[in-house]
């Protein structure tokens, strides 16, 4: 089974801090994704990566950046955390080989910015 691991289940940070959310997958997947989930808004795509060193903006990239230095790891960075970035963050991965494959999700990081 595909395993997508997010480094923290719960995280509390302060306004203005630089925050790193880490995601690792063990299936050699090329594609990786970061979403945030908020009540009533569903999942919104922040950034995604087709492969190592590659990144693409999603629907809501403002205030975020990403890093993909190794194939298995995709990091989401909040440059200067703000209270409106309090949310559930979900990482996902998918094989590029066949485009009809599902995305596989981690268990999420619930981030609170105080």
């Amino acid at each position: 089974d595909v395993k997508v691991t997010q480094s923290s289940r719960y995280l509390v940070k302060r306004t203005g801090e630089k925050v790193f959310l880490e995601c690792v997958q063990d299936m050699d997947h090329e594609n990786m994704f970061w979403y945030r989930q908020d009540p009533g808004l569903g999942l919104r795509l922040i950034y995604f990566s087709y492969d190592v060193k590659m990144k693409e903006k999603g629907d809501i990239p403002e205030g975020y950046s990403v890093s993909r230095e190794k194939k298995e790891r995709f990091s989401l960075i909040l440059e200067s955390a703000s209270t409106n970035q309090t949310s559930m963050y979900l990482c996902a991965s998918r094989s590029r080989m066949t485009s009809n494959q599902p995305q596989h999700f981690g268990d999420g990081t619930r981030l609170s910015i105080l």
Partner: protein
Amino acid sequence: AQSVAQPEDQVNVAEGNPLTVKCTYSVSGNPYLFWYVQYPNRGLQFLLKYITGDNLVKGSYGFEAEFNKSQTSFHLKKPSALVSDSALYFCAVRDIRSGNTPLVFGKGTRLSVIA
């Protein structure tokens, strides 16, 4: 542009009764369609997908979904609901011509199964 609509924020059903969670989609070509389930404080778990072929797709935990091209729908169904089916359900789509792009998700439907 691709989009998904889940018209019901909440669905309530009695245990043992059949359940339906609705999903309609919009793509310019043909769709790949997916259903996911999310339990509290967990990520999304893949339930089933439609790629091509038989319009009735069977998935995990006794769920199935029916693809209807004329109505652009992909409703999730289960013949007999369990209390443990209570969760948040997401429908997702990708146009098969869109290459390697991310899935587009609906806003989710909360299913509550009452004993």
